[in-house]
């Protein structure tokens, strides 16, 4: 009997898989080259020369810093809200069977399953009906809504693998619900919760479609980039910002991967 790992892949398959992976990564690599080009009027390739000066120019741009600050604030607060709501939901759904359980899981997934533009325009029209002025909180309201699902997915998968008898044992030994949560449940779901939180952070930090509808006059970093994409005015600065954004989002993704790699590969399912 042949064992599963010893077969050699046909060359055509290897080539197709390799080309596919290259197709997914080369465009992002290109961003790093463009960040150092001396050309500032067009997207000319190959770059006529290389320079570090755009890093300095970008560093001294207050509008970029403001956008970055707003993005970080929004992502942090939305992540915290999503972690609380997502964990509560996951705990309720995985611990007990109750009427409407399927509906709850559908409700959590819906904001990410329907196109973002629908969430965005729905929130915007609701804000205008309710006379809520745009602020950082309207952005957070939108972001937290679709970040819940990411935390929920990760935590619910971990709950499924955690045996319920642990909780019963803890109660039998005299711990109350809060002690059980603090000393038994939390250490068990901790890494999944952290991974979910990191992915939620990355998702919020990058979100643009819903944000265009809920932001009003302020710009998060993606909104700033979108404006540059539609009407390029300062290409070199945009190049550098794009490079920084890639580096900032890669770190939480890698961290989330290392936290959840043992067994449950749910970290990314259903962005």
């Amino acid at each position, binding site marked *: 009997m042949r064992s599963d790992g010893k077969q050699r892949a046909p060359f055509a398959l290897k080539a197709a898989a390799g080309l596919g992976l290259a197709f997914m990564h080369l465009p*992002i690599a290109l961003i790093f080259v463009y960040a150092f080009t001396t050309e500032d009027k067009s997207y000319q390739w190959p770059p006529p020369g290389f320079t570090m000066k755009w890093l300095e120019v970008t560093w001294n741009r207050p509008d970029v810093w403001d956008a970055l600050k707003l993005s970080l604030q929004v992502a942090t607060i939305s992540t915290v809200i999503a972690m609380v709501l997502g964990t509560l*939901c996951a705990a309720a759904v995985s611990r007990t069977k109750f009427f409407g359980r399927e509906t709850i899981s559908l409700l959590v997934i819906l904001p990410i399953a329907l196109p973002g533009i629908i969430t965005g325009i729905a929130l915007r029209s609701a804000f205008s009906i309710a006379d809520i002025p745009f602020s950082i909180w309207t952005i957070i309201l939108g972001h937290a809504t679709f970040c819940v699902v990411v935390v929920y997915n990760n935590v619910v998968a971990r709950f499924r693998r955690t045996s319920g008898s642990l909780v019963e044992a803890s109660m039998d030994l005299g711990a109350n619900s*809060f002690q059980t949560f603090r000393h038994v449940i939390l250490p068990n779901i901790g890494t999944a919760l952290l991974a979910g939180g990191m992915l939620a952070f990355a998702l919020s930090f990058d979100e643009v479609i819903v944000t265009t509808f809920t932001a009003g006059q302020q710009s998060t970093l993606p909104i700033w980039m979108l404006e540059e*994409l539609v009407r390029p005015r300062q290409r070199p600065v945009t190049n550098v910002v794009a490079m920084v954004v890639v580096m900032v989002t890669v770190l939480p993704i890698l961290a989330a991967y290392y936290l959840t790699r043992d067994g449950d590969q749910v970290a990314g399912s259903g962005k």
Partner: protein
Amino acid sequence: MTAASSVTQTAQSSAILPGQGGWTGSLSDKFWRNPKLLLILMLTPPALWLGIIYLGSLFALLAQSFFSIDEFSGMVQYDLTLKTYGELFRPANLDIIIRTVSMAAIVTVAAACVAFPIAYFAARYARGKWKALFYIGVMLPLWSSYLVKVYAWKLILAKEGILTWIFAKLHLTWLLEAWLAIPIIGGYSLSVSYTGTFLVFLYVWLPFMVLPVQAALERVPGSYIEASGDLGATPGQTFRHVIFPLALPGIVAGSIFTFSLTLGDYIIPQIVGSSRLFIGQAVYAQQGTAGNIPLAAAFTVVPIVIMGFYLWGAKRMGAFDAI
């Protein structure tokens, strides 16, 4: 005798524990006696948040699609009517819908073709370090910034960009020019043609296809493939009759993402592509500059209905077990 009675006494006193002290203790006693209370407490915050903020606004939006706009004053009339839905069937609006749905379908098919070899290799041949590499190799593009990815393609597809340069180096400029000369899919340069829009859509949604296909392929037992070979099937027959049918739920699951995401996107066709609108752009334009919220709302119903049917069909094919 005394020892025995003291034992029974301890047993009695410990059989029913005294109520725990403090408010945390009494609260958790309550939870224990009444598990529903805990459940309700846990469910209320997320249900309220999603129910009020999300579903509330969604229904408010859908309700507006049954209003209409007065063509002279431009004011919204709050009478229930299907007139706005009728407007969707005007040739200009119908064009937008057909254009978007065809693009979504083509992108989905192409994504399945490109994703399959990656998923197949990762599921069947990659082991250990390579497996992790493939997994991260798909996760990184999936989670990297959407706008940065679109921006990268703006750089690639630009007239003075790397793709034109590669074609020139390979002495294939004539091929690129011939392609761009084709009426519908061509244009002045790749970045303002449907070909460009298609490439960016394919690139951005590809990881969403790879992951579920890989998950489905990983569930195909190796013994099935060996059995098929033992029974005399050629590799092509094995693929057609064993592997592909078993991978199909994964492909359908992936197509839910690629199809739905293409239907709703309004940023990619705005940045890379011709000036003709997609559904997302039409929604954006109607609610923004035109101020026609009812028509914008009616337009959003189109992807919801299409996705409703799509999900219903996908569920029948067992795609949800593959996500």
